[in-house]
């Protein structure tokens, strides 16, 4: 495609047709301070801070929504621009309750960055806590006192096909409010896209601390390796998987697992399900059910597709079930066993409370710590790093080679397992290609015994909705559908620490993980689980309504 060449502050830069000044500036590490810009949203252009001027054009332009043109000369700084920025910044800040010290955003807060750059002292003209906070299920808290009306949350919620958040004009101001007739799926994208920290996860830290404080408890942690790199960017270079495991041991964990073991079980079960489905007369596409936000999305907004959902539980729930089952057979009082999952996800906080996922009245997983919460919890530790280093890695079970680096890896593994079961041969080099018109969607066809199996993987519900519409018209368009509710997959989950726009790549997985595990021990756990496989792995999903929140009370 033809490149557009133009200048920013005299520097030659280039971009594609349709790109905005802001996007090209970011790529060239030219910093235009703005608040509401999100690379993956349509610009709301509400903060009016990212102003620039353009040679031979009257007035100022917001760089987030001004398209680049050949030969244009953009100036990002001038006394007038700074004046307007200061005024608008003060106006924004005047309505923000400045609870900066406890804010989830503080490390990458654009508001604070601007305050530093322009030398503002923070003083709020508004008393904090005037407006009541909202809590969405067991997952997310929204504090309207921090809201700066940028509207990003409403847009992302709408894009997700949920439309739970809307704006309502109350007493002269538009307020973000939850909608009465719709329900939250707890994906937490509002949290990831809020520049002013108005959303945060419901904290499980007190609960986890309480569990750890009782030394009679047998506490087991599991985590997905996906989140480890973001730990490094938050806590420092030391924090690889080993170090995290040692720290958790130091905190009192008896055993630590990689959730990938649960994925192995899911894949085994799912390939059986797929074979079963493909053999059926009126075959239905098999939807994966790893993502609790996706499951709730189907239950609430597309109940006609509930029967398409795999009746497998998600990997960490299945593995939690295995752990509890195994430890019980080892003579440990089930009431004293606690499994805590660390995940990049806010929706799992809701998932672990679903009564239909209990096994014999016991929850497979007792608490979810988001990646962000783990960082907070670890920062509270009193041990020095050398002391943590000394801790042994006994009873730590981390997969190395076969760990699942991304959601795509999971479905590829599923496909390989399925292929092997059906044909006895290895499936190699399976390539996925983009699905035209479906955001973050990829597809692949596999020929198995002369039968074409069509597989699709979609991140984000905007694209997933389109696949659902395709399936409504043609139920055989796909045979196997994997959906993760978050547009960037689990790496972009609502429970991840918030990064700069420019540094999102930091969240990528560690490639050179040192993993190891006692194969015999894992086999014991798996074998113990075989006898109760159905109870541990399966469930039934059903139509959800607003009043049926599907969360049982705390135990």
């Amino acid at each position: 495609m033809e490149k557009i060449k133009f200048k920013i502050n005299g520097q030659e830069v280039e971009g594609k047709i349709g790109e905005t000044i802001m996007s090209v500036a970011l790529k060239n590490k030219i910093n235009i301070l703005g608040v509401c810009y999100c690379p993956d949203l349509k610009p709301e252009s509400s903060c009016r801070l990212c102003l620039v001027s353009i040679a031979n054009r009257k007035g100022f332009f917001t760089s987030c929504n001004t398209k680049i043109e050949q030969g244009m000369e953009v100036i990002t700084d001038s006394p007038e621009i700074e004046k307007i920025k200061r005024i608008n910044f003060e106006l924004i800040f005047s309505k923000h309750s400045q609870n900066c010290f406890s804010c989830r955003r503080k490390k990458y807060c654009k508001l604070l960055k601007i305050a530093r750059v322009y030398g503002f002292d923070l003083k709020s003209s508004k008393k904090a806590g005037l407006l009541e906070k909202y809590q969405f299920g067991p997952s997310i808290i929204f504090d309207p006192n921090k809201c700066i009306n940028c509207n990003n949350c409403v847009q992302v919620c709408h894009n997700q096909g949920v439309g739970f958040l809307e704006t309502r004009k109350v007493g002269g101001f538009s307020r973000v409010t939850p909608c009465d007739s719709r329900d939250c799926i707890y994906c937490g994208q509002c949290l990831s896209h809020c520049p002013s920290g108005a959303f945060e996860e419901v904290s499980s830290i007190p609960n986890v601390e309480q569990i750890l404080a009782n030394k009679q408890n047998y506490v087991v942690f599991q985590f997905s390796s996906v989140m480890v790199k973001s730990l490094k960017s938050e806590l420092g270079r030391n924090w690889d998987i080993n170090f995290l495991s040692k720290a958790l041991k130091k905190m009192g964990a008896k055993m630590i697992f990689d959730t990938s073991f649960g994925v192995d079980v899911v894949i085994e079960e799912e390939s059986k399900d797929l074979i079963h489905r493909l053999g059926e007369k009126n075959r239905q596409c098999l939807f994966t059910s790893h993502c609790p936000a996706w499951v709730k999305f189907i239950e609430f907004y597309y109940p006609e597709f509930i029967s398409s959902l795999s009746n497998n539980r998600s990997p960490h729930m299945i593995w939690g079930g295995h752990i509890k089952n195994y430890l019980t057979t080892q003579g440990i009082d089930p009431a004293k066993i606690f499994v805590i999952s660390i995940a990049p996800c806010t929706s799992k906080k809701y998932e672990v409370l679903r009564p239909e996922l209990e096994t014999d009245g016991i929850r497979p997983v007792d608490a979810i710590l988001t990646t962000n919460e783990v960082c907070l919890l670890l920062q509270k530790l009193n041990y020095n790093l050398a002391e943590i280093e000394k801790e042994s890695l006994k009873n730590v079970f981390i997969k190395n080679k076969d760990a699942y680096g991304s959601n795509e890896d999971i479905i590829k593994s599923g496909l390989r397992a399925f292929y092997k079961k059906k044909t006895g041969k290895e499936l190699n080099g399976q390539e996925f290609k983009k699905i035209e018109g479906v955001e973050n969607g990829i597809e692949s066809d596999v020929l198995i015994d002369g039968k074409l199996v069509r597989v699709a993987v979609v991140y984000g519900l905007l694209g997933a909705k389109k696949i659902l519409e395709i399936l409504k018209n043609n139920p055989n368009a796909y045979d196997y559908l994997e959906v993760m509710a978050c547009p960037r997959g689990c790496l972009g989950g609502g429970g991840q620490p918030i990064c700069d726009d420019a540094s999102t790549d930091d969240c990528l997985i560690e490639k050179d993980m040192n993993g190891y595990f006692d194969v015999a021990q894992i086999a014991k756990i798996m074998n113990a689980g075989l006898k109760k496989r159905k109870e541990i792995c399966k469930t039934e999903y059903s139509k959800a309504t607003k009043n049926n929140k599907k969360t049982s009370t705390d135990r």
Partner: protein
Amino acid sequence: MEKGIIEKLRDSQLRGRGGAGFETWIKWKIVKESLAEQKYIICNGADGEIESSKDGFILDNYLEDVVNGILIAISEVGAQKAYIFLRKDYFDKYKERLSVLTVNQPIVLFEKPEVGYIGGEETTICEIIEGREAKPRLKPPYLAENGLFGCPTLINNVETFYCVSKIAQGDYKGERFYYVSGKVKNKGIFVLPDNASIRGVLQETGNCPDFDYFVQVGGYFGQIYLPDEIDSQFSAISSITVFDKNETDVYCLVEEIAEFFHKGNCDKCTPCREGSFLICEMAKNKSFDYEKVEQIIFSLENSSFCAFGRNMAISLKSIFKKLIKNGKNQV
């Protein structure tokens, strides 16, 4: 050969009566010459100023002309469908008569939702009709190129369509409707030449004050004029509000206007949303921070997304300049 309607519009020098004063014939020409298959017409009857009911007066008395103007537009520019966008009270009052007049015509009545003044801004109207949130769009593209549902759209105000009908019939006398209000003897709507001066309107309508006064021209968004400024010819005056200089509390005046802006804006942009609120609060507390007011007006002028903020700046600037000089309450 008889002249086409666009030529007639050009000869009449008719400018849009919605406030912006754009030459009507140019807008029509752009939409007509567009090669798009689908085109739309919108008749804007949102009439956002609370007190003014000029559009209501026209709908009351000349409903047939308005519909006729719309029908002329439909056939001239080649549109498939027209919307008559009306504020709630107008919608309720005229829907029956309008549905009789538009029977078998591709004209749809559309009721403006409860969204405040911004719901009368042309791009916002498109967003509303398309079923989205009442927020303005980025211009360009202009509606004449890319409007409702992405199609070329001709939007004119109720009064403009009335004038079109008159021009087509050869009945147009270069007149417009004036709404005179405030502290006057004869409050109401008057028809006078298009290019009258403010003093001319006040004299013709028997409303020349015999006390010390100032006027605001064009409703809440309009500028303030002092008695020595009202003789020159104005174009596009639609309403004149007369104030008694000695009786008017400028804090109350600013409070009323700023509150209207606070409630009527779409809350998208920072200066509009927060600035109108802060000025309103200052007025309520009867204490202006002049530096802050100057800053807010500067930001409204230079960083507003749409004309709402820029027009708000014009109004506030003229109030502070003419009525509250040098930080002292002149009134």
